[in-house]
């Protein structure tokens, strides 16, 4: 077992015993949000980190997942699990549509396309009041439950069970990311990132792989949205907020894009940072903006990479 694996396992162990050590509901709340964002970050990492396509519209998939899941639960009264699966499918379909619409676009054009799509979805969410209740939002979105027959009902409405639910999904997606990245798909993604024309010329059907990565990415983001909706029990069109898309990008970049643990670290950092910044009061978002600039310009390989460098340099001298 090499060092990487040991550390990953230690992370896992730490996450498993976290609720036992930290009983404070505020820290559980933060942990759940980190988990949801970790899923989002993993999903964007596949697209941005491994395939090299920046998207500023990931909130679209997140939001669609949240709404689909909630609407199925509220209107059709079906178990939450089915709603989550529907969310996965719906965002996957949206991903397919996005990929098809933008397959010719790269760089700035693709980014603007993603922003445009998210804005349209937000406006639909705001105005299709009959379906989404517009700015009033959807309330009383219940948490998932499992009926264990004679043993009673496992209600995920409490923080601790919900935390473990999210943790298991994060582990699952992490594993999925790992398998995908080490497979031939992963190699195709990376070759597209490095030099798309070259990849095309050696016979890699870039279009096909882009569609696949966008669909997988979208589906995971949709699940994250669904988990969010059933946790907060209230959603409104703010799930399509530009800030969410930007924050997820920061997680991927700040955590270290194109690495396995990167999105996890990024999720931890960028879920907590906006909270820590509350000490700055009104200047909160100004400081956040400065962080975005500093990280994007000076730390494109992730915060920890540079922190490590710094510490290594100190050691050498």
């Amino acid at each position, binding site marked *: 077992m090499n060092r990487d694996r040991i550390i990953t396992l230690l992370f896992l162990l730490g996450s498993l015993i976290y609720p036992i050590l930290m009983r404070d509901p505020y820290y559980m709340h933060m942990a759940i949000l980190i988990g949801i964002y970790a899923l989002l970050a993993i999903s964007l990492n596949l697209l941005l980190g491994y395939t090299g396509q*920046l998207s*500023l519209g990931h909130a679209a998939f997140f939001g669609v997942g949240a709404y689909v899941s909630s609407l199925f639960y509220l209107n059709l009264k079906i178990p939450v699990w089915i709603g989550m699966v529907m969310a996965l499918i719906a965002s996957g379909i949206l991903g397919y549509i996005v990929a098809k*619409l*933008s397959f*010719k*676009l*790269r*760089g*700035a*054009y693709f*980014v*603007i*396309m993603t*922003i*445009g*799509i998210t*804005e*349209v979805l937000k*406006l*639909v969410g*705001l*105005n299709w009041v009959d379906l989404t209740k517009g700015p009033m939002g959807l309330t009383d979105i219940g948490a998932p439950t499992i009926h264990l027959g004679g043993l009673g009902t496992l209600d995920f409405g409490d923080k601790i069970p919900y935390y473990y639910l999210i943790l298991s999904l994060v582990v699952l997606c992490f594993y999925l990311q790992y398998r995908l990245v080490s497979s031939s798909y992963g190699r195709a993604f990376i070759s597209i990132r490095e030099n798309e024309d070259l990849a095309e010329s050696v016979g890699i059907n870039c279009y096909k792989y882009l569609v696949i990565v966008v669909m997988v990415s979208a589906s995971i983001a949709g699940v994250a949205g669904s988990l969010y909706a059933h946790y907060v029990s209230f959603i409104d069109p703010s799930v399509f907020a530009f800030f969410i898309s*930007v924050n997820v*990008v920061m997680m991927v*970049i700040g955590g270290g894009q194109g690495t396995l643990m990167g999105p996890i670290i990024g999720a931890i950092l960028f879920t907590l940072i906006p909270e820590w910044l509350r000490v700055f009061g*009104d*200047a909160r*978002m*100004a400081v*956040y*903006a*400065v962080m*975005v*600039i500093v990280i*994007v*310009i000076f730390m*494109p390989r992730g915060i920890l990479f540079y922190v490590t460098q710094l510490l290594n340099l100190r050691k050498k001298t």
Partner: protein
Amino acid sequence: MIFVQYVINGLTIGGAYALIGIGLTMVFGIMGVVNFAHGEMYMLGAYFLFTFFTKMGINFYLSMLLAIAAVMGIGGIYEKAILKPLRRRSIETVMLSMIGFSLFIQNIAMLIWTPVPESITSPFPLTAYTLGGLYFLPQRIMVIFAALFLVLLTHLLLKKTKIGKAMRATFQDLEAASLMGIKIDRIYSFTFVIGVGLAASAGTLLGPIFTVHPYIGNLANLKAFAIVIIGGLGSFTGAITAGFLLGVFESLGAGYVSSGYQDAIGFILLIIILIYRPTGLFGKIGQRR
């Protein structure tokens, strides 16, 4: 009849859109920079007008010029200090930094001027002129004329002046222009400052019509991007046409369909253009992506 009124209403907003659009398309086309902070220059233009005119009591038209000059100054510093070092970086890095700056400027503005919405009382009369049952608001008519005037000025700048020629050369072929001895750095700075000045002028024109608050740049930004893409990167005519078109379509859409979806019209047009004709209505194939 109401149709014509809608069209007239749309043209006035369209004029402002066109102004913001030209500034962005110039910067986009000549420098290849995706300036997400463009909308904030618009916002600063309005705020500086507020400070000079409403707070300091300087003459309205002088205040407008001062406001535009102030924002151009800020733009110049911004270009030299931030955009220049980023020139060699990937387009993603530049975009994200611009978004960061946009957020930063918004929040600094909020801290300086407070989030309380402000109003600028322009010297123009409030009541509209009527002509055959149609209403023409003086302030808005001025916006259309000012917009056309500035467009004309910029056009003359590009076509008739030496530096304008250099800008066009840079736009067409960066390497060749550089080889011909054109100082690219200077052209870039100049272009950016002009572009920012146009956005600021849109801000001074629209500021008195609408309220001024730190977040007015957001919508301006998004509309500007939609217009630039729809019109075609780097195309002047495109930005102007798209600007007026968008204004009119939004007005008609709000009038006949629903005012809620008004803002969606721009994005939907944007998406359609991106799918079927990514280079835009007037864009040329083979331009720098």
